[in-house]
């Protein structure tokens, strides 16, 4: 039930006194309440749970984590590991 989907804020507007937004989830647009992410701007990403934005995605942190792992994978590949298609090590998988 605690499922949260990241989506991009396309538009921000007021509805019944609440800050609302149209959120784009990979092409599907749906409305969400943005009262809990009051500083969010159009173009930023938010995690939406049950119709409410609950967190602004820290894009730097998201990419940092992925890039760090990609870098490690590259180093491993240089050391003779195959991370690109074939199993790295049969005993691992």
């Amino acid at each position, binding site marked *: *039930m*605690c499922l949260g989907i990241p989506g991009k804020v396309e538009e921000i507007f007021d509805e019944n006194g609440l800050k609302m937004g149209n959120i784009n989830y990979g092409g599907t647009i749906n409305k*969400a309440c943005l009262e*809990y992410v*009051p500083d969010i701007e159009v173009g930023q990403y938010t995690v939406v749970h049950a119709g409410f934005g*609950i*967190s602004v995605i820290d894009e730097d942190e*998201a990419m940092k984590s992925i890039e760090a792992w990609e870098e490690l994978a590259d180093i491993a590949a240089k050391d003779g590991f195959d991370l*690109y298609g074939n199993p*790295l090590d049969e005993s691992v998988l």
Partner: protein
Amino acid sequence: MKYLDEFRDPKISKEIIHEIKSIVTKPWVIMEICGGQTHSIIKNGIDQILPKEIELVHGPGCPVCVTPLETIDKAIAIASKPNVIFTSFGDMLRVPGSKKDLFQVKSEGGDVRIVYSPLESLKIARNNPDKEVVFFAVGFETTAPGNAMAIYQAHREELTNFSELVSHVLVPPAMEALLSSSTNRVQAYLAAGHVCAIMGWWEYEPIAKKYKVPIIPTGFEPIDVLEGILLAVKQLEKGKYEVENQYLRAVKREGNQPAQHVVNQVFEVGDRKWRGIGEIPQSGLKIREKFLVYDSEKKFSVGDIITNESELCISGIVLQGLKKPYECSAFGKECTPSNPLGATMVSSEGACAAYYKYQRIKNA
């Protein structure tokens, strides 16, 4: 989709598995709290590709699963009333009460509607002033801000035909209840990422220190879960027990303070019964006195309904990580997703339902 696909990359997953394997020297038991994480682990076969030293046990973090049977019976009693529009997230409708489920109430003519947000229930209340509109407010800390906002907004708009049947539970008291049990096996937690998005992770610091367990707020995609396991194993191997945030892109130490503020205005902490576990002191949220006119239990006088669980079901033991679903004699026989006997089979996020769906009859 951005911020989902990157965290499902098999190349990176292999790298993390390789690193876990290279550092693990002893057997460790790690519990993922959230049912969403359980689902991700079983769906992606994460438990099967980890080194044999690491055992994942599945925690109580599925609010659908831990909502007591008697609360389901209260929902059914309210939804069966003639002037009521009963609204709920879809996954609560097929949870069986002691005699029927909410879908059956609907098939018998009850006005039961699925909504995707509590604000939709509020809209239904605005558009139907001659009806009583009830929202089934079930969930953990993640869902509480939305449910609190619906009550707060009803109060601001002076809507008197809206109320919530509240069964909110809190994660930290359940974590402590498990750790303080004499049968506890858990040595590290993957904390529920979206609960932490709301509450932050500061409240886990005293738990990590008191029980000497690493606690890792963790996301839901395969790379998140694997990275959470890696951080936990690193700490376990070094004898450390700290709160270490894996889900950096969505979780801050202080959490979402505007959300916490509204939750604290509308709800207060109280004792709460968990299906399969029993009553845990101070483990739930209830509506504050100022907003009691929005409490469906009071409005419809269903507070005295009490129901007992099936004696065959061992979901309480599964929720504590003491047994795997396939160790239950009823699993896949008397108990299936279409005829669930207990907590962990009722929701797709429950451990038994996930094992059933992905045909995990027993571990390879």
